[in-house]
C-alpha cells in the first residue's frame, strides 16, 4: 500500500492521481487522499456540480481529515467501489469510509442520490476537522444553511436540495458548516449527504441504518464482481478496471461516459481542457469486447441498446459523441468563473467535438454489435436493420475526410484509421450476414465491393513503402498509434509483415520510456504538449501478446500498471518524466485498454501452453 506524507496546510490542489472515485452508476464523486470530496455533479454525470474544488479552490468541497499532521493509506474494500482512507497521526489511527450506497429507493424512502461518509476510530485517538462547503451550479451558488432538526442541515432549495444528516454536531459559519471531532478506537460517526431534484427531499438515516447501507453496498459490489470471469495473473487490476468502468456506466440508459470530470488538463497551463462527461462512440468496439470477454453480458446488452437506440436522433449518420440520453445539444460554454485545475483555464462545459465527423464511429458500433452477437447474444430485426443502415452510410461516405479518432481540430483529413474502421464496418456486416444473423440481400455485393475498394485504398495509399509503415493519413508520413488497433478489429493479423513494421515504426517515433504518445507532439496543432496516452500504450502490449511475445508483453503491461495510482486508477494521459496523471480522471477508455490487453495476454498464454 502506498504511503504519502500529507500536504495539509498547503494551498495547492492535490495531484490528479491523488483522487479516488466512488459512485452509484448515475454520478460519481472524486475524493482526495486527504479525505476531501472535491468533485461531484448531481444528479447525473453531466449535471452541474455541487462540489468542484478540483477546478477551483472556492467551488465546493466536503473535507474530513485529522487536525494534526498525518500520513495516508488508501484502498478499496476488495472487489467493491467502497473507498477506505486510513489516517495515521502520532496519537492514533482513524479510517474514513466513503461510498455511494446502492439502495432501492422505490421500495423505501431513501433519497434519490446519497453520499455516505463514515469515520471510525481504529486505534488511540484522532482529532478531526470537518468542512462541508457545497457550491451548487459549478460553484456559482453560495447557498445558506438551515438547520431542520438537531442532526439535519439543508442547503439549496427550489429545484435542488442537499440534506446533510450527521451524528456529529456542526456549526454554521455562513459559507460552510464545520466541526471538530475527537474520535477514539471503536467510535463510528456518520455523514449522510442526500440530494433530490424537483421532488420532496428525504433524509437517509445515520447510525446502524447507515452501517447497514454500507454493508449492503459492499455485498452488492462483491456479488457483481463475482461475474468477472477473468482468472489470469492480472485479475486484481483487471477487476479494479472493470469496477471503474461500471462506475462510469449510466444505469438509466446503459451508456458509458468517457470520464466523470471536465477540464482536468492534458497539459498544465495549456489549452487542452475538455469535457469528458459524455459518451464517445469511438470507444464502443473495445468497450463491448471488454464487457463481453469479462462476462458482463447485462451491461453489454444495455450498452448495445444505448448505442443503437439512443443514437436514433441522428441516424443513419452518427455523431462522435452523445450525452447519456443520446442527445446532441452539447455546445461548449466556458465557465470563466472557475480558475481551472492549477489555474489551467478555460473550464469547458459541453464538447464541440460533437460538430466533428468521425467516420470510425460507424465501424465501432457495428463491431460492438458483432462482438455482442458472436458471444451468443441475440440481435433483433430492428437492430439488424439499423446496422445495415450504417453500412449504407459507410458505402456513401467512406472517401470523405474526417476528424479522425483523436478529434483533431481544423481541416478534415483522410485518416487511415478512419478508412480502416469503414473496412471493419462492412467486414463485420458481411460476417453477420454469413452467419445468418442479418440479411444483407442485394447489398451483399455492394458491401463486398466497397470493402475491397477500401482495403485497396488503404494498402495503396495508407502504407508508406519508404517508411515501411502504415501512416496516420493516406499519402502521409506521420505516425498514429491508433493503427496498432487494426489487429484488434481483424483488419490484419499481428504477425503480418506490414503490421510488425508499423509497430516498430510507431515504437521508434512515439515511444517515450515505455509509454506511447498517440501521435507526434504538435501534430494536432494545439498549443502545449500533451502527455503519453494510456490507452495506446496498452495497445502496444496487446500487439506484442498477439504476436506471441508474451513475456515482453507482460513486462510492458506490468510497467504500465505501475503508473496507476495507489488505488489502481488511470487518467487519460501520463506525463512521461514524472509519471503524473494528466487529463480527465479516471478515464474509462484507458481502463478498457488495460482490460483488453490483459485478456489478449491471457489468450496468448493459453495458446502458448497448448
Amino acid at each position, binding site marked *: 500500500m502506498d504511503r504519502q506524507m500529507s500536504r495539509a496546510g498547503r494551498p495547492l490542489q492535490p495531484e490528479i492521481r491523488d483522487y479516488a472515485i466512488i459512485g452509484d452508476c448515475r454520478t460519481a464523486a472524486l475524493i482526495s487522499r486527504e479525505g476531501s470530496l472535491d468533485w461531484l455533479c448531481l444528479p447525473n454525470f453531466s449535471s452541474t456540480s455541487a462540489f468542484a474544488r478540483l477546478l477551483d479552490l472556492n467551488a465546493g468541497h466536503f473535507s474530513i481529515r485529522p487536525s494534526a499532521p498525518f500520513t495516508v493509506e488508501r484502498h478499496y474494500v476488495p472487489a467493491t467501489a467502497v473507498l477506505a482512507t486510513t489516517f495515521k497521526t502520532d496519537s492514533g489511527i482513524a479510517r474514513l469510509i466513503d461510498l455511494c450506497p446502492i439502495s*432501492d429507493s422505490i421500495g423505501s424512502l431513501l433519497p434519490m442520490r446519497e453520499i455516505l461518509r463514515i469515520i471510525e476510530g481504529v486505534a488511540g485517538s484522532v482529532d478531526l476537522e470537518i468542512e462541508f462547503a457545497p457550491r451548487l451550479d459549478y460553484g456559482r451558488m453560495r447557498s445558506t444553511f438551515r438547520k431542520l432538526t438537531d442532526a439535519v442541515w439543508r442547503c439549496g432549495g427550489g429545484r435542488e436540495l442537499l440534506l446533510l444528516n450527521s451524528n456529529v454536531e456542526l456549526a454554521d459559519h455562513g459559507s460552510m458548516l464545520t466541526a471538530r471531532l475527537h474520535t477514539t478506537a471503536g467510535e463510528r460517526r456518520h455523514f449522510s449527504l442526500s440530494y433530490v431534484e424537483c421532488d420532496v427531499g428525504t433524509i437517509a438515516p445515520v447510525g446502524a441504518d447507515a452501517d447497514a447501507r454500507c454493508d449492503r453496498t459492499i455485498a452488492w459490489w462483491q456479488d457483481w464482481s463475482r461475474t468477472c470471469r477473468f482468472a489470469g495473473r492480472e485479475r486484481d487490476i483487471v477487476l479494479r478496471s472493470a469496477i471503474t468502468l461500471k462506475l462510469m456506466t449510466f444505469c438509466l*440508459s446503459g451508456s458509458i461516459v468517457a470520464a466523470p470530470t471536465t477540464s482536468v488538463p492534458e497539459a498544465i497551463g495549456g489549452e487542452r481542457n475538455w469535457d469528458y462527461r459524455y459518451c464517445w462512440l469511438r470507444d464502443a468496439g473495445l468497450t463491448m469486447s471488454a464487457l463481453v470477454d469479462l462476462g458482463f453480458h447485462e451491461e453489454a446488452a444495455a450498452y448495445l441498446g444505448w448505442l443503437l437506440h439512443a443514437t436514433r*436522433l441522428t441516424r443513419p449518420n452518427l455523431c462522435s459523441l452523445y450525452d447519456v440520453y443520446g*442527445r446532441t445539444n452539447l455546445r461548449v460554454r466556458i465557465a470563466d468563473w472557475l480558475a481551472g485545475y492549477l489555474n489551467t483555464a478555460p473550464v469547458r462545459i459541453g464538447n464541440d467535438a460533437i460538430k466533428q465527423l468521425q467516420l470510425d464511429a460507424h465501424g465501432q458500433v457495428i463491431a460492438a454489435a458483432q462482438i455482442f452477437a458472436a458471444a451468443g447474444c441475440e440481435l433483433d430485426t430492428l437492430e439488424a436493420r439499423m446496422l445495415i443502415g450504417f453500412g449504407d452510410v459507410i458505402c456513401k461516405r467512406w472517401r470523405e475526410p474526417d476528424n479522425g479518432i483523436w478529434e483533431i481540430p481544423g481541416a478534415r483529413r483522410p485518416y487511415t484509421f478512419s478508412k480502416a474502421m469503414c473496412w471493419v464496418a462492412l467486414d463485420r456486416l458481411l460476417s453477420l450476414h454469413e452467419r445468418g444473423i442479418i440479411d444483407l440481400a442485394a447489398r451483399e455485393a455492394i458491401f463486398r465491393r466497397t470493402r475491397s475498394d477500401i482495403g485497396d485504398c488503404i494498402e495503396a495509399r495508407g502504407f508508406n513503402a519508404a517508411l515501411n509503415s502504415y501512416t496516420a493519413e493516406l499519402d502521409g508520413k506521420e505516425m498514429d498509434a491508433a493503427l496498432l488497433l487494426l489487429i484488434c478489429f481483424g483488419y490484419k493479423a499481428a504477425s503480418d509483415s506490414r503490421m510488425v513494421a508499423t509497430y516498430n515504426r510507431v515504437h521508434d517515433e512515439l515511444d517515450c520510456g515505455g509509454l506511447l504518445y498517440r501521435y507526434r507532439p504538435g501534430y494536432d496543432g494545439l498549443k502545449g504538449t500533451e502527455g503519453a496516452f494510456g490507452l495506446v500504450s496498452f495497445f502496444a502490449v496487446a500487439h506484442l501478446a498477439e504476436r506471441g511475445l508474451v513475456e515482453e508483453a507482460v513486462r510492458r503491461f506490468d510497467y504500465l500498471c505501475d503508473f496507476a495510482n495507489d488505488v489502481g486508477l488511470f487518467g487519460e494521459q501520463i506525463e512521461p518524466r514524472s509519471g503524473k496523471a494528466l487529463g480527465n480522471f479516471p478515464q474509462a477508455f484507458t481502463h478498457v485498454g488495460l482490460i483488453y490487453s490483459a485478456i489478449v495476454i491471457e489468450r496468448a498464454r493459453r495458446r502458448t501452453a497448448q
Partner: protein
Amino acid sequence: MNAPWYLSLWALVATLAMTSILETSRGLGFSRLSLPFLIGTFFTGRRGRAVIVGFAVYTIGGWLFAFVYFLLFSSVRIYTWWFGAIAGLAHGMFLLTCALPLLPFVHPRMASEYHSVSAIRQLEPPGFLAMNYGYHTPLSTLIAQIVYGATLGGFAQIAHWAGA
C-alpha cells in the same frame, strides 16, 4: 350531434394523424419518444413484438379516448376545431407533465431515478417533459395532441353544421 355512427371512423382518423406526427418526428430525428413502443413494453421485452402490440393497444386507446373528447364537446356544447385543439393541448400537457413522469413508477421495464442500480430495467426514463428522448419531444408531442383534438373537433364541427 346526430351522427354517432361516424364517431368510430373519426376517432380512428384522429388517432392515425396523431401517431403519424409522432412517428414522423422520430423519423426526422426530432424525438426518440415512441408511445406505442413504451406501451408495448408493458407486455413484452422483445422489441419487435412490443412495437406491434404497442401500436395495436395505442391505436385502440386513442380510438377509445376520442369518445371522451366527444363527451367533452357535447357537455359544453362547443363543436369547433379550435376547442378540440385546446382540449388536445391540455391533454398533451397532462401527458408530458403527469403521465409520462409517472411511467417509471408503474412500467415493469423502465428505470427510474429511484430504482437500485441492481434492478435490471432496460428502458430509459422520460425525464422532465420527456426531454430525455430529445429536446424537441415536448413540441412534437404537443403538436400531435393538438392535431388529434383539432381533428376530432373539426369532425364534430362539420357534423354539428350538417345536423343544424
